[in-house]
């Protein structure tokens, strides 16, 4: 079962590397959205420093929505997904592999990029550290919960917008705790409650979302 997981992850990573532009567009979108905020609200450093965690988290949320549409669609169009579902392997495990690969391709670059963008907002080193830990715990949840939406909207017209409509409300707790952790760090409060809750959300998502996504795919492929 573990080898299956590694196989699926490797396959998806290779596919992503063959289509590098897709990965880069998500990252560029993230950078652009974050950079638009100072232009919209003005360059006062005091205000920007306060807004930074929220802006970075919302931008991360939006850009992960952008890449979710592609999670299953390519495999669906060329028939690979059907073959995967016909195979005697556990579909939940296959889905988990795709989620992990999706996070490595679209979530991890955001985590690595975030500190650079945080510097634009004059965030302190300590706040940046908390931001990175928060993103590391939170972005996998976005990929996992988003996968349910991607499974449900498979092959529908206007799937992208619909996907965001379904998934964004479900991701609100991640946003709250992720941005809350950074806020707590800058105001000198304990960050561990927020991070613990983010970790709990991740474990909860890890336990249930692969199975739910597998069910969603079964419904969509019937």
């Amino acid at each position, binding site marked *: 079962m573990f080898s299956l997981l590694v196989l699926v992850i490797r396959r998806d990573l290779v596919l992503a590397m063959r289509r590098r532009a897709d990965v880069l567009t998500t990252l560029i979108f993230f950078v652009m959205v974050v950079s638009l905020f100072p232009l919209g609200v003005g360059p006062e450093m005091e205000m920007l420093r306060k807004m930074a965690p929220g802006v970075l988290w919302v931008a991360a949320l939006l850009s992960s929505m952008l890449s979710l549409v592609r999670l299953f669609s390519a495999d669906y169009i060329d028939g690979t997904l059907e073959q995967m579902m016909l195979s005697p392997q556990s579909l939940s495990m296959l889905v988990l592999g795709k989620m992990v690969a999706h996070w490595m391709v679209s979530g991890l670059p955001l985590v690595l990029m975030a500190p650079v963008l945080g510097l634009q907002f004059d965030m302190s080193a300590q706040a940046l550290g908390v931001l990175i830990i928060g993103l590391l715990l939170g972005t996998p949840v976005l990929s996992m919960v988003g996968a349910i939406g991607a499974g*449900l909207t498979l092959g529908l*017209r206007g799937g992208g917008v619909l996907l965001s409509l379904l998934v964004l*409300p479900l991701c609100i*707790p991640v946003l709250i*705790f992720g941005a809350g952790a950074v806020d707590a760090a800058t105001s000198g409060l304990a960050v561990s409650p927020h991070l613990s809750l983010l970790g709990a959300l991740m474990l909860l998502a890890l336990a249930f979302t692969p199975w739910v996504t597998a069910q969603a795919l079964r419904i969509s492929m*019937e």
Partner: protein
Amino acid sequence: MAINWFKYSAPTTFYGLAGKLIPLFAIPAVVLFAVGLYIGFFVAPTDYQQGEFYRIIFIHVPASILSMFLYLVMAGYAALGLIFKTRLSAMMATAIAPTGALFAVISLWTGALWGKPMWGAWWVWDARLTSELILLFLYLGYIALHASIDDPKRADRASALLAIVGSVNVPIIYFSVKWWNTLHQGSTIKFSGTSMHVAMQQAMFITLLACWFYAIAVVLARVRSIILERERHTTWINELPEVK
């Protein structure tokens, strides 16, 4: 005598039953609204703190309660439909969604009307307001997903799964938002008793019942339309007097 519990789980039989039940719920709903609002507006005393403004609770509280309760009922029907593959359950879930969304809108709207004189703002980012807004988003997501799938069977099952995921998520969202910020006044009605005047309580419970009956009547009427639409190719529909 053996009772066939599943007799009315078929759209064919339920269609007639729903038609008979609608007036049984619609007429009491109108009467209860009239009585409840009369007590609420003319009998209940003025609040010593909030003046006359508080009277909006006779709409606001029932609407909020029903918006949350209906989501659970919807998810319950959705789960039934998904597990037992009963067509009627899925139709019921679909029929409940617009009414639930309507109550969520009413709740937010009346809350805003109350918030302006009380808090001095139409909207504040308070835990309850925010989670009610998110509940509305969940309803809209459900309706949007159902509407964008052409195959009714897939639409039922996909949106059912979404409703169930949503209902699991509702407590998580509620508590996360609650810890994030809280300004809304706590519940006045608790299981241990209440500090409310009797007439206020009566008015609120009567309007709550009225909203409940209204919701049942409307959902039944809507489910009848859904049955007509989905089963339009069958012979029993074509033999109905209202279709002929």
